[in-house]
C-alpha cells in the first residue's frame, strides 16, 4: 500500500513541479553579454540534466520490480534481504551532478577585466534564499538522525550486514524483517555528505569569485543566483530522496509481523515496537520523496529567466 503511495508521490511531485515550472515560464529570457553566454548555457544544461537523478531513482525503484517479474532478484540477497546498494544511487547521482556542474561553472567563470569593488562580504549563502537553506540543512540533519537511530535499532543478518530488524516473539525466540540499518543507511549518509561538501564548495567558490567588469556585474549576479539556487535545489532533492526512501523502508518494516503457531491454541502475531506509527512513517517517507521530485522537476522545467539584479557593492579603482 505504501509503495502505491510512493508512486502517487512520484506522479504528484512531478506533476506539480511541471505545472509550477510552466507558470514560471511566462516571460521572455533576457539576453546576457557574450562573455556570460557560456555560463548561462552550463546552467541551462545542468538544470535539464538534473532530471537524470529522477531517472536513476526510478531505475533503482522499477528495476527490481521488473527483474522480479522475470524471475530474477538482483536486489535480494541469499537470505531474502535487500542488498546494501539498494538505497544510495539517487543520492550518489546527485553528488555526481554537483561535482560535474561545479567543474563546468569554474571553467566558464569569466576572467576579471575591471575591478568591481567589494563592499559586502559574500559567502556560500549570499545568493540563496534563507528558506531554501533551512530546508536543505533540515533534510541533512534528519537524514543523519535517521541513519543513527535506524542503525542502532538494526541487527546483523545472516549475511553479516546490519540490515535486519529483530522482532521478539515472546519466549519463542525472535523473528526478523528487512530493515535499513547501518548496511543501508551508512552508504546513503556518505553520499549525502559528499553532496553537502561538494555543494558547499561550489557555492562558496562561485560566490567569492571576482566579477568580470562593472558593466556585466548585474548580469553576473543574476547568473550566480540562478546557479546557486539550482545547486541547492538539486542537493536538497537528492538528500530528500535518500531520506524518504529510508523512511519508507523503516515504515514498511514496522508494518510487518511475525506469526507463531502454538498447537491446539492458535497463531499469534508479533510486530515491531513502533508498529502503531509505522504507516505514518512510511507515508511521510513517500511525501519526502514527492518533495524531492518536486524540487528537481520544477527547477529542470522552468526557463532560466535572468532578471536584472542591482549589485550591492561599491566600485573602486584600486589599480
Amino acid at each position: 500500500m505504501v509503495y502505491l503511495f510512493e508512486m502517487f508521490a512520484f506522479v504528484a511531485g512531478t506533476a506539480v513541479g511541471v505545472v509550477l515550472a510552466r507558470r514560471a515560464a511566462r516571460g521572455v529570457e533576457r539576453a546576457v553579454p557574450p562573455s556570460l553566454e557560456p555560463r548561462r548555457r552550463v546552467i541551462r544544461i545542468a538544470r535539464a540534466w538534473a532530471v537524470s537523478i529522477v531517472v536513476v531513482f526510478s531505475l533503482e525503484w522499477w528495476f527490481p520490480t521488473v527483474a522480479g517479474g522475470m524471475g530474477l532478484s538482483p536486489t535480494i540477497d541469499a537470505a531474502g534481504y535487500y542488498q546494501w546498494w539498494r538505497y544510495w544511487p539517487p543520492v550518489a547521482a546527485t553528488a555526481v551532478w554537483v561535482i560535474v556542474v561545479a567543474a563546468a561553472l569554474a571553467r566558464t567563470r569569466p576572467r576579471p577585466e575591471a575591478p568591481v569593488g567589494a563592499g559586502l562580504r559574500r559567502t556560500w549563502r549570499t545568493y540563496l534564499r534563507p528558506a531554501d537553506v533551512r530546508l536543505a540543512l533540515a533534510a541533512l540533519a534528519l537524514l543523519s538522525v535517521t541513519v543513527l537511530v535506524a542503525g542502532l535499532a538494526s541487527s546483523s543478518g545472516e549475511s553479516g550486514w546490519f540490515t535486519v530488524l529483530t522482532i521478539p516473539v515472546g519466549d519463542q525466540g525472535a523473528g526478523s524483517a528487512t530493515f535499513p540499518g547501518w548496511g543501508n543507511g551508512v552508504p546513503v549518509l556518505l553520499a549525502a555528505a559528499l553532496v553537502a561538501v561538494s555543494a558547499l564548495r561550489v557555492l562558496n567558490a562561485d560566490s567569492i569569485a571576482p566579477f568580470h567588469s562593472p558593466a556585466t556585474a548585474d548580469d553576473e549576479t543574476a547568473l550566480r543566483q540562478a546557479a546557486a539556487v539550482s545547486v541547492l535545489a538539486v542537493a536538497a532533492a537528492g538528500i530528500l530522496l535518500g531520506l524518504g526512501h529510508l523512511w519508507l523502508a523503516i515504515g514498511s518494516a514496522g508494518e510487518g509481523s511475525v506469526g507463531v503457531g502454538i498447537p491446539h491454541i492458535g497463531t499469534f502475531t508479533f510486530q515491531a515496537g513502533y508498529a502503531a506509527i509505522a504507516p505514518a512513517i512510511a507515508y511521510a517517507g513517500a511525501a519526502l520523496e514527492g518533495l524531492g521530485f518536486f524540487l528537481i522537476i520544477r527547477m529542470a522545467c522552468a526557463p532560466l529567466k535572468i532578471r536584472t539584479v542591482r549589485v550591492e557593492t561599491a566600485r573602486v579603482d584600486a589599480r
Partner: protein
Amino acid sequence: MNRVAPSEGGAAADIHRHFRGLIVSGVLGGGERLPTVRQVAGDLGVAPGTAAKAFRQLEQEGLVVTRAGAGTRVSPEAALLPYGVVDRIRALVNESRRQGATIDDVLAALRASWDSEP
C-alpha cells in the same frame, strides 16, 4: 555605487578609504563582517598583502576589530547603525527596487511608520 579615484597612497590607501567611507556612511553596520582579504584582493585585482595592509590601517584607526576565528568586523562605535538595522534596510531597498518603488515614496512611508509606531 560610488567610485573612488586612485590616489597617491596607492591601492592599499584606496581600499582603506573605500571601506572607511562605507563604514562612516552607514553602508556597513556595526558588528558586520568585512569581506575576506581573499575576496577583496580578487575583486579589486590586487595582491592579498595589499588588501591586508588596508585592513590593518582600518584596525589601527579603530574602525574595525579583528579577532581570531571571528574575522574582521566593523567596530560598533565607528558605525552609524548596528548590523541588524542595516541588514533590514538592505532588504527594504531590494524589495522596493523589485516592486518599482521610488526612494522618495519609501522614505515618506518610513518616516510615517516611524512617527506612527509607539
